């Protein structure tokens, strides 16, 4: 896949009993799947679970030995549907994706799966992308678990706990015929640690064998009257079975003293950071031995009523620590207490903030506030009466600029957005819909192209209301990843079918780039296990879109702008689609850098381009920056008392993509940019000609210099 190899990680997956695994959480999950006899794995890549997919994609040999089927699914819905194999067959299956966007896409399949129920363990591993660094809307997967009745595991964020959760997940699923979701927060996916390995286990029933001996049972099909039966089954049979398994196997954990007037109920994922707050308050030691009883919900749904009520016995009040809103857990627990006629006070949201990430500071402040209220005797003296004032640190909020993500150096998408910005300068502002992917950065400064995004592959569909046309046409962006994920059907057949008089731009960078550079249908690389090299333009033709323009070098800003202008102004009706293709620079560099270095070393002729700015020709207006935002294009403060404004400057990280020069040309900016191409290992003839030429140029330069005043080295 892509240009990265995960062979080293694959070796970790081969470890057996008696060996210790040390590494990231997400890789530990991958290993745990194999230890628990998983029969098939599928999913869709995305932070923070991409690693699981990438490593398995490179582990073909190992999977073959064990008889495990791996699919890189077209999207999360396909992944969810794949769990159908566990409906009738006692095969353990696991799928993974980013939550909750993945759950959104997969919800149709998952709801059907949950209704009919499963025979083999079905595990849905969700990388919960909540809080700092997240690139998606902030929502909870929890709601999906509740509405479809799938159990939700939220293990403590350390490797042994996470690994244990995988095994219990399968068993719980089988014990209660219910799919189980395993949610792992973003930091837990990337947390490092160790666990003791077990031997990998081949599935008891490999999928190939199941295929040879097909089974079916119409009672599991989601059709009346059986769908009504499923609904009752969920409550009467599966729920009690799940509760029993959870209690018997002590999935939820208790820490701290048995007797106390207060206690905390918390999601497993919050455990470490809660302990840290208690450590800072002097209420827990380094190993997490705490003075306050903790009821840690490694199973966030269902909540086991009896277990909870037992925990509350003898307590005056509890604090529920539940990240995210709405406060599903707190509401349920409050109901349990109320119905039990309990007098235990429940604190939670209110003391803790309703929304947002529970950072170290939030937890420290909230727990302190709770203790002051519920158990003032436990508050350490220092907090009760701080005797030292914190020093005043200057406020930097007006100084430090925000740094949202943006296009990488040399990104082929940058010139596309430069061209759109230029065409809007000519034709006025247009209605532009964005999509998910790196190209969504185009909606940020300096381009500010695109005003909303409705979901992966839904860019053009998001312009549906405007596709009747009018004085101006709408423009929609979509990436090649989004195109194959969902866009072809939801956006493009939608456009074609409705005879949309609108423009769509497919940003084709040869990979699913934002998720780590995985191959997709239209990737140009040869991939032995996947069908690649299927042009997007052919798919568009296939659904009857006639006006398709293929652009094979997005860096040609002038051409890019001209094609856009044509699409926006042509009298031709119907969808107009521009496929703008150039390889993702991150992946390209990863592949080509070592090859180039080797070629130079081997004495082959290689040209390496880089751009530069003549600083005395640049006037410091920064018009180029407003059409670029390239990390390698920065500013330089000149050491010249006559100049006020810093000038453009290109650092050595430049990869010579050409956007600077092309933009300077297309937008008629200035003649400051030049491209310097270093020719390594030139031929003898080339060197001779260059010498002769340099001689003449040198003579001309000396001639002029001799007739004028020359001021130092200023050039």
């Amino acid at each position, binding site marked *: 896949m892509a240009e990265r190899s995960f062979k080293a990680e694959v070796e970790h997956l081969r470890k057996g009993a008696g060996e210790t695994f040390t590494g990231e959480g997400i890789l530990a999950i991958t290993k745990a799947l194999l230890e628990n006899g998983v029969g098939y794995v599928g999913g869709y890549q995305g932070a923070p679970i991409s690693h699981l997919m990438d490593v398995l994609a490179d582990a073909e040999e190992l999977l073959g030995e064990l008889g495990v089927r791996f699919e890189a699914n077209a999207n999360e819905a396909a992944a969810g549907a794949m769990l159908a194999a566990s409906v009738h067959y006692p095969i353990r299956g696991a799928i993974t994706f980013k939550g909750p966007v993945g759950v959104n896409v997969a919800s149709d399949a998952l709801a059907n799966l949950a209704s009919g129920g499963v025979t083999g363990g079905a595990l849905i591993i969700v990388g919960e992308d909540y809080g700092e660094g997240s690139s998606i809307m902030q929502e909870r997967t929890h709601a999906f678990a509740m509405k479809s009745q799938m159990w939700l595991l939220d293990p403590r964020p350390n490797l042994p706990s996470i690994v244990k959760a995988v095994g219990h997940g399968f068993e719980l699923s089988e014990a209660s015929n219910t799919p189980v979701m395993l949610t792992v927060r973003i930091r837990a996916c990337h947390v490092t640690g160790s666990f003791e390995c077990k031997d990998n286990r081949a599935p008891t029933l490999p999928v190939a064998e199941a295929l040879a001996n097909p089974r079916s049972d119409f009672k599991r099909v989601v059709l009346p009257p059986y769908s009504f039966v499923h609904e009752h089954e969920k409550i009467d049979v599966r729920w009690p079975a799940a509760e029993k398994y959870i209690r018997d196997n002590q999935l939820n954990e208790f820490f701290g003293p048995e007797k106390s007037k207060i206690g905390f109920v918390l999601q497993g994922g919050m455990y470490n950071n809660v302990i840290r707050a208690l450590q800072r308050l002097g209420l827990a030691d380094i190993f997490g031995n705490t003075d306050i009883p903790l009821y840690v919900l490694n199973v966030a749904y269902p909540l086991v009523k009896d277990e909870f009520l037992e925990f509350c016995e003898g307590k005056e009040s509890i604090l529920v620590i539940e990240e995210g809103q709405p406060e599903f857990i707190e509401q349920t627990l409050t109901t349990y207490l109320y119905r039990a006629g309990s007098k235990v006070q429940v604190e939670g949201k209110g003391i803790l903030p309703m929304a947002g990430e529970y950072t170290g500071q939030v937890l420290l402040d909230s727990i302190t506030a709770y203790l002051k209220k519920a158990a003032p005797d436990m508050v350490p003296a220092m907090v009760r009466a701080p005797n030292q004032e914190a020093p005043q640190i200057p406020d930097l909020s007006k100084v*430090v600029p925000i740094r949202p993500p943006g296009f990488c150096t040399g990104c082929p998408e940058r010139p596309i957005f430069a061209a759109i910005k230029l065409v809007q300068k000519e034709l006025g502002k247009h209605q532009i819909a964005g999509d998910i992917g790196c190209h969504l950065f185009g909606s940020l400064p300096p381009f500010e192209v695109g005003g909303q995004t409705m979901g992966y592959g839904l860019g053009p569909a998001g312009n549906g209301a405007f596709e009747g046309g009018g004085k101006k046409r709408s423009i929609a962006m979509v990436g090649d990843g989004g195109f194959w994920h969902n866009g072809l059907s939801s956006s493009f057949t939608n456009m074609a079918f409705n005879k949309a008089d609108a423009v769509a731009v497919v940003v084709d960078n040869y990979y699913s780039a934002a998720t780590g550079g995985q191959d997709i249908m239209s990737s140009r690389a040869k991939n032995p296990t996947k069908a690649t090299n299927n042009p997007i333009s052919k798919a568009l033709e296939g659904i009857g879109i006639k006006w398709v323009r293929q652009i094979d070098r997005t860096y040609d800003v002038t051409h890019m702008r001209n094609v856009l202008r044509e699409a926006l102004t042509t009298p031709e009706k119907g969808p107009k689609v521009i496929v703008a293709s150039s390889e993702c620079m991150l992946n390209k560099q990863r592949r080509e850098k070592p090859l180039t270095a080797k070629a130079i070393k081997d004495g082959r002729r290689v040209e390496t381009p880089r751009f530069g700015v003549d600083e005395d*020709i640049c006037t410091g207006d920064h018009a180029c920056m407003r059409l670029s935002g390239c990390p390698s294009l920065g500013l330089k403060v000149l050491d010249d008392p006559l100049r006020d*404004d810093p000038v453009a400057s290109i650092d050595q990280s430049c990869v010579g993509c050409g956007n600077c*020069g092309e933009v300077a040309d297309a937008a*008629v900016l200035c003649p400051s940019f030049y491209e310097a191409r270093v020719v390594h*290992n*030139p031929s003898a003839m080339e060197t001779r000609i260059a010498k002769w030429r340099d001689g003449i140029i040198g003579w001309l330069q000396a001639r002029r210099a001799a007739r004028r005043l020359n*001021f130092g080295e200023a050039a």
Partner: protein
Amino acid sequence: MNAPLSHKTPDARLQGIIKLAILAVGGQGGGVLTNWIEDLARANGYAAQATSVAGVAQRTGATVYYIEMAPAAGGVPIFSLMPAAGDVDVMIAAEMMEAGRSIMRGFVTPDRTTLIASTHRSLAVSEKMVPGNGIASADEVMAAAEIAARRFIAANFDQVAVKQGSVISASIFGALAASGALPFPRSAFEDAIRAGGKGVEASLRAFNAGFDAAVNGVQSEAAPAPKPMAKAAVSGPARLKTEWDRLAARAAALPGPVAEMALPGLEKVVDFQDLAYGTEYLDRLDKVLAQDRAENGWALGREAAKYIANALCYDDIIRVADRKTRAARFARIKGEMKVKDGTLMQLTEYFHPQAAEISGMMPAAMGARWQADPAKMARLTRWFDKGRRLRSDSLTAYVMLYVLGGMKGWRRKTLRHQQEQTHLHRWLETALSYRAANYDLAVEVLRCRRLVKGYSDTHSRGLSKFDRVLDGIALVANRADAADWARRLREAALKDEDGTDLDGAIQTIRSFA
């Protein structure tokens, strides 16, 4: 400074936990650095845990890595998964504004935090977009860091690493070793790099350089010495040199603050055209100085010296061609591109001439006729208006540029020259007309010349902003605070491309003027 902790921690072993956060910009190798630190800790008998938030944030956005470690004895320590305000022992910021961000987020506190920061800047888009100077103040961050950190170790670790052919993660790792914030010897750090196995030699070089830079502190990166005045390296034919010396002496004899600008100004003007042009420059300056006095600090004269020079040296085809064909430029680029023996360099210039620039090169009367005739201008557009990539290392393109660059004799006859002279004259007259009633306002109007810059559309946009600012100033010229308004208008004009801020400021003025 050893302030007591604000929260008492009865378990003494908690003091053994070292909490280390790294705030990096995507692509700086924060992941590699994290791995090294983690391996270092484990190899030295510590339990360690690292986490990060990667995802799309790694694409040039700011990314946080977090590591905790403690002596591994007696059980498994419970580590936090994220840094908390007031609870970080070592904060590594791989860029100056990220250091500022770490302070803002409370990760740097006087009681405990060793802050290791690279002083280099990786500019945010918002800083680069501004038509004027939008660069955030690193000095303010430095000052805050001195207060916020228990120890502050700063140097340009990016430059240090690049010099060694490596990346900042290695030089910062060196600085971490030098800081002594981790209880491991230097050799253990080097072993961690070796164990990593990739690019070991370059990383070790950068590690050593980073170590030294941290020990020597900010001094290692001495501020660039102010450029010596133009006197040093003037060379040329004796006849021209004599005349130059005379002019330079005349400029040097001006009042101190004026001479400071007039000398580089004179150099710029003579380099742009010739010595006669230099004389004109000093004559114009003298006229302004006749209205200036020592008790005003010669502000008017000083600004005039600066901006008249800039106005005289407008950006025309001749200047660009002259600059692009000089030997020093070729040498500079070869140096920057590291062109060594056995390699060659090809140089492509990106030009896009427009009808206005071509007609500007015509003799004044003819150029004016053409510019007044849309059909003629359309013809020029048809002939010339397209992107031209010139290989200035090839003979044909070089000679063409060389000839253009040598047309200084022609320049004074051109329409562009006439236009620039008129504009210059009008601007100076306007400024001086305010002189008698409001000295400060006259100074501010001179400074408005800063707004005129760029080529083609950028240049016309600059001119239009200049006009709007001067019109705005005229509205308030009679007020006592007119100079303040003039400054505000100019600054607003430099805030954004379209002049939205400027329009707002002018509206405000209209509301009371």
